[in-house]
């Protein structure tokens, strides 16, 4: 019997039991749709993390004041002000494994232009900071080392701030007021998007850290800085840089052997790699759980095929009597199972794709449906059909024709 007539026979018997076929397919539909949605969510999360990692900058270390005991991913920044401008300068100049270092400081405050008022993050740093973060200036210029030295009242605006305060107007060269002091806008920062913590990184104003220390903050700790951002020469030397920074700072802070550090060093790429592997494990887990439902769908097919084989024992006997070989019967039932699985799979893919789109719209999550995932789901459905259809089909093909003919 050729494939075409076998397919036709299979289709007819599936149509004859419409409700049962649809219910059996439903198992596959739900399984495949679940896999597609979960994989899409996982892939979306992965894509987002990768984009965020790229937006942070590569080979970065953060030197944070205060000891590590209270450390954690988010907490612990800005303990006692133990780091200084000279610490930052020393790290940048003296260490062989360090390409650059920038002292930074953060606060927040209102920025005013004309009658527009916008409260934002004020990010102080050295000019190198932008380069380390791979943050381009799209219009105007960065501030210069001389302006840093002189604590000039210049600033660069993030896209969000620029959009809000200036709209379509060109901000470069304009004067804005930050905490009532006038600042000249010298440049506009490129769009950066969300941080790994989910903040809008473009909602910021970048200015010389010296200006921030002298003009904007209370002068309680002159020369103290928040976090020192350090960039290693290359990815292979991040660990080495970490060691050198610790050694240098212990020396500079005169910490005796065995004494606790009054600072801590965090490896940013390591933290992000951790976040990345966490998302990967999450997507694997999601996919795995969804695959279980696919398995259940497959067992449903096997169950129904077994029932169908028993019900049609007499038909099998008749077909054998008129000359069907084992493989004719086997292929007939196998094709039925595969049709169930594939039709269910195809519908599941469509529903899954729709579900993924709906998820991204309702929950605001990024979802990614790759052609590879679709092909894989389709191929997997066929495999489920063959795998779970084989046992019932073989059972049918091995029947004894006389007993099958006698079956009531």
């Amino acid at each position, binding site marked *: *019997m*050729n494939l075409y*007539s076998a397919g036709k*026979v299979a289709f*007819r*018997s599936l149509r*004859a039991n419409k409700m049962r076929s649809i219910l059996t397919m439903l198992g596959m539909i739900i399984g495949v749709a679940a896999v597609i949605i979960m994989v899409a969510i996982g892939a979306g999360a992965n894509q987002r993390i990768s984009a965020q990692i790229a937006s942070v900058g590569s080979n970065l270390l953060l030197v944070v004041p205060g000891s590590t005991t209270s450390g954690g991913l988010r907490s612990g920044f800005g303990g006692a002000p133990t780091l200084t401008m000279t610490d930052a300068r020393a790290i940048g100049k003296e260490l062989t494994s360090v390409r650059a270092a920038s002292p930074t400081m953060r606060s927040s405050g209102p920025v005013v232009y004309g009658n527009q008022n916008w409260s934002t993050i004020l990010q102080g740093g050295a000019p190198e900071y932008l380069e380390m973060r791979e943050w381009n200036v799209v219009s105007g210029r960065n501030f210069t080392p001389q302006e840093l030295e002189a604590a000039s009242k210049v600033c660069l605006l993030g896209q969000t701030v620029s959009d809000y305060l200036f709209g379509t107007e060109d901000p470069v060269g304009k004067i804005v007021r930050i905490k009532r002091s006038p600042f000249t806008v010298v440049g506009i920062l490129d769009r950066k998007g969300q941080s790994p913590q989910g903040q809008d990184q473009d909602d910021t104003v970048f200015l010389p850290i010296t200006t921030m220390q002298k003009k904007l903050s209370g002068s309680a700790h002159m020369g103290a800085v928040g976090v020192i951002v350090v960039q290693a020469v290359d990815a292979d030397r991040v660990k080495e840089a970490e060691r050198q920074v610790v050694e240098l700072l212990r020396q500079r802070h005169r910490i005796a052997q065995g004494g606790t550090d009054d600072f801590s060093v965090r490896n940013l790429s390591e933290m992000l790699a951790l976040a990345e592997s966490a998302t990967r494990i999450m997507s694997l887990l999601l996919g795995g759980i969804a695959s279980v439902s696919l398995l259940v769908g497959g067992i449903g097919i096997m169950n129904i095929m077994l029932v169908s084989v028993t019900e049609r024992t*007499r*038909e099998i*006997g*008749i*077909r*054998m*009597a*008129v*000359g*069907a*070989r*084992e*493989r*004719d019967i086997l292929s007939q039932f196998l094709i039925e199972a595969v049709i169930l699985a594939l039709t269910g799979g195809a519908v599941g893919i469509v529903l899954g794709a729709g579900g993924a789109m709906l998820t991204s719209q309702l929950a605001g999550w990024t979802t990614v449906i790759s052609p590879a995932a679709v092909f894989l789901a389709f191929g997997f459905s066929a495999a489920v059909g063959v795998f779970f259809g084989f046992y019932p089909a073989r059972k049918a093909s091995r029947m004894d*024709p*006389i007993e099958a*003919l006698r079956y009531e």
Partner: protein
Amino acid sequence: MGVAAIEVSGLVKTYRLGDVLVEALKGVDLSISAGEFLAVMGPSGSGKSTLMNILGCLDRPTSGKYLLDGEEVGGLSRDGRAILRRSRLGFVFQGFNLLSRLSARENVELPMIYDGTSAADRHERALSALSSVGLADRAHHLPSQLSGGQQQRVAIARAIVNTPALILADEPTGNLDSVTSDEILGIFQRLNDERGITMVLVTHETDIALFAKRVIRFLDGRIVEDRVVENRRRPPAPRENAG
């Protein structure tokens, strides 16, 4: 008569039921010539169906020889026997054994879908087989839309569609009234006369057996009588609205 179509010797069939061995056939020797019309009679449980199943290559003998057209077929594989059944044998059963979801024509086509006959050929041959049993106008009916006699005629059409050398009919009239039974036997006689198809027929009724050319009688797994039919019955003239 001509060449021996079937040559059976020392045929034994034993069934095992738990610890008990049931000897359904206890050494049967039988020769059936090509073109013969044989009726097999005997009490219930005497081994008639067992013999038919072996002759029809649906089952294998426990021991003994079975030559079909001079070829030993007792040792064929399952697939070998399947191919033999669809190419050289036709079956007619007491219970008709039609597939209820298929139309009359599709039921007749069944043996041909397994031997690679093209769809157009299948169609044509099925229709001609149906018209030779007088059912050309019922080709699209489902079995449930046909009378018992008509269903049995569809089954006969299915049995002859691959031009078999031998038709095996196990109590083909067991579910039919006597008038319809005579009509079915008339068809068998015609196929036997006109096409030279060898017929083997199991029946409990003596007047059905009288349609055959030769009658054998089984008792307890052995042939106890083998005789030629003297006054063969012929079917009555066909009725209007037959079946």
